[in-house]
């Protein structure tokens, strides 16, 4: 402990509405955005933070460095197709890749609950190591803390990552322009439904596995094939939230076709049953890319040639207009695709 008193803030940081933190504040939806806008950005300031990209890009001695951090608290820690360890590596790798960076180094912080089976810890660490090899990054530093039984739900992982943005690469959520095409790299909602079905004990026809994967290779292929303006991996809040974030950052209208989004049948079935919209369900290996209109076809072809993008589709287009996302429905109507306030809740009936 330092014996310095913490520096007094000159003016109190304004608190967001509400007496206590709610689960919705971590959902990636509107409550999260409100917390970031009203508490975090004013407290720390700085143009890099305010840009709210997947990773910050800072210049160090002439080199553009992408830097990001992420926390992983998923329950259950092992789920069909993956586990919290691989997720923690891929999530941070993907945040770097989405800024056009080549991910290089990771750190990991493990918060363990007293009594966690050593076998579980071993499995998670082995999975992290395998994910690092697959993503071609090196984990170079770390930290371990153990809290008393009941102080955590078994195991939490935080990772931070560093990457280098190659010269000439310029991507960011604020760069979408009218005339651009919007591409989704793979079937949406698979990860969220795989985790939810394991949590709820619901089984569906056909094996449903999390889509968690490093997107570095795919991002590189897209960038090489044409003028990619923005990329985001559609994690919490799903593709709907990511489209809204891009529309907001670039001040454009994005129009998308509901039927153009690839969705696996078991995911559709699960979402129909639970009253969820797959466009809001989390993914861990799917990105949204905004591409200059003339380059849409070559970039789509490059995506489909990559194993992570074999079912990539053009789902919509960027237009001039107020910052918003509009969805054309199957029957020919349109409706806005808004940000959700919090997590989607399964319906009563």
């Amino acid at each position, binding site marked *: 402990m330092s014996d310095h008193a913490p520096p007094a803030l000159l003016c109190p940081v304004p608190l967001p509405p509400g007496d206590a933190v709610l689960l*919705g504040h971590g959902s990636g939806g509107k409550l999260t955005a409100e917390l970031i806008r009203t508490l975090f950005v004013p407290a720390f300031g700085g143009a890099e933070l305010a840009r709210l990209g997947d990773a910050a890009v800072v210049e160090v001695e002439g080199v553009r460095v992408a830097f990001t951090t992420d926390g992983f608290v998923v329950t259950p820690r092992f789920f069909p197709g993956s586990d919290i360890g691989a997720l923690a590596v891929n999530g941070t790798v993907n945040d770097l890749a989405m800024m056009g960076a080549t991910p290089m180094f990771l750190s990991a912080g493990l918060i363990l609950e007293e009594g966690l089976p050593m076998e579980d810890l071993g499995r998670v660490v082995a999975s992290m190591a395998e994910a690092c090899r697959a993503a071609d990054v090196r984990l170079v530093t770390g930290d371990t803390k153990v809290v008393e039984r009941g102080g955590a739900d078994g195991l939490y992982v935080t990772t931070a990552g560093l990457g280098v943005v190659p010269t000439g690469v310029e991507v960011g959520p604020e760069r979408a322009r009218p005339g651009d095409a919007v591409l989704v790299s793979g079937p949406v909602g698979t990860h969220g439904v795989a985790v939810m079905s394991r949590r709820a004990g619901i089984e569906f026809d056909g094996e449903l596995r999390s889509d968690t994967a490093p997107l570095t290779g795919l991002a590189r292929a897209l960038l090489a094939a044409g003028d990619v303006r923005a990329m985001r991996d559609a994690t919490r809040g799903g593709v709907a939230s990511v489209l809204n974030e891009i529309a907001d950052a670039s001040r454009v209208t994005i129009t998308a076709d509901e039927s153009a989004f690839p969705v696996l049948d078991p995911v559709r079935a699960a979402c129909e049953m639970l009253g969820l919209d797959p466009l809001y369900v989390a993914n861990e290996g799917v990105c949204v890319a905004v591409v200059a209109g003339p380059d849409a076809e070559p970039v789509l072809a490059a995506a489909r040639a990559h194993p992570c993008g074999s079912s990539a589709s053009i789902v919509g287009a960027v237009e001039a207009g107020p910052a918003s996302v509009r969805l054309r*429905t*199957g029957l020919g*109507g349109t*409706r*806005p695709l808004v940000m959700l306030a919090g997590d989607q809740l399964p319906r009563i009936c």
Partner: protein
Amino acid sequence: MRFVDEYRDSHIAHAILADIRRTATRPWTIMEVCGGQTHTLIRQGIDQLLPAEVEMVHGPGCPVCVTPLSVIDRAVSLAKRPEVILCSFGDMLRVPGSSEDLFMARAAGGDVRVVYSPLDALEVARANPDRTVVFFAVGFETTAPANAMAVRQAKVQGLDNFTLLVAHVLVPPAMLAILSAPGNRVQAFLAPGHVCTVMGWTEYEPIAETFHVPIVVTGFEPLDLLEGIQMTVRQLELGRAEVENQYVRSVVREGNAAAMRVVAEVFEPCDRAWRGLGPIPGSGLRLTEAYRRHDAEERFPEVVVDVPESEVCIAGMVLQGRAKPHDCPAFGTDCTPEHPLGAPMVSTEGACAAYFLAGRRREAVTS
């Protein structure tokens, strides 16, 4: 995908719409009773594709919306008791009580768990013998059989620590209340397909006859709704008032006998207050004497003060089909899904949230 795509076919939809346009010669007001039907209508923009003669008004069939404030307050207060595990379907957690919702109760240390079935709550009770599970039994006739089954199993297996906070409501008494209210505009109903899957439609026959209103038992997919509206408009134009069944793939006239048997064994009708509609005689269910020991209100007889609804919120008018959500001065401004004043803004099945999420705004603002 089978059983979904064939009920969303755009060509068939437009053919039915054309027929409705040819058939409707006068203005008609039709109420879809169930919130699931409202959700599909608004989400797909079906109400905007209908001819001007056909006006859809949105009924009280959203269980989240009609659960009174005092019951939500009771659930919140039970959830905060250290000996209680409160289990609920997910969408009840964000419904505001008079000062708090169940998410806040959880943030304050309450043990609130989302379950997908009352039988999951039964498992929670089995795994926690030293605590009392309160399952928040909300819903219409649709959810009553599974809840009844859970209580019966709790009794058979001696799980004394499993209780229900019962807020069940019934559709036919609410339809009677709407038809009997002064100023009623509803001329026909799309009856709720899943309620009728359980109960059949014999209860609806005297309503159709007494009030001379067509009632069409209708499903929830876009083509179900369009066909239900088509059948209703045909009856209205011919001056008929019968109960017809659009949802033939799910509903038979006599309903599901096994489900009705277990409901009749565990529950009995009682008077119940509806949010927005007020007290309606015989419109709710409570546990019968034989199962009363599993009643959370008997187990924890706390006093909950009745708090009046927000004065601005017009949920009652909306739930009776007498006002549209965007007629409300608070709609989209003081009342949004993040900060709802009234329950129809909370659930995606609520008429106000359906309007809000579909980008419907107050006329005065958009023009």
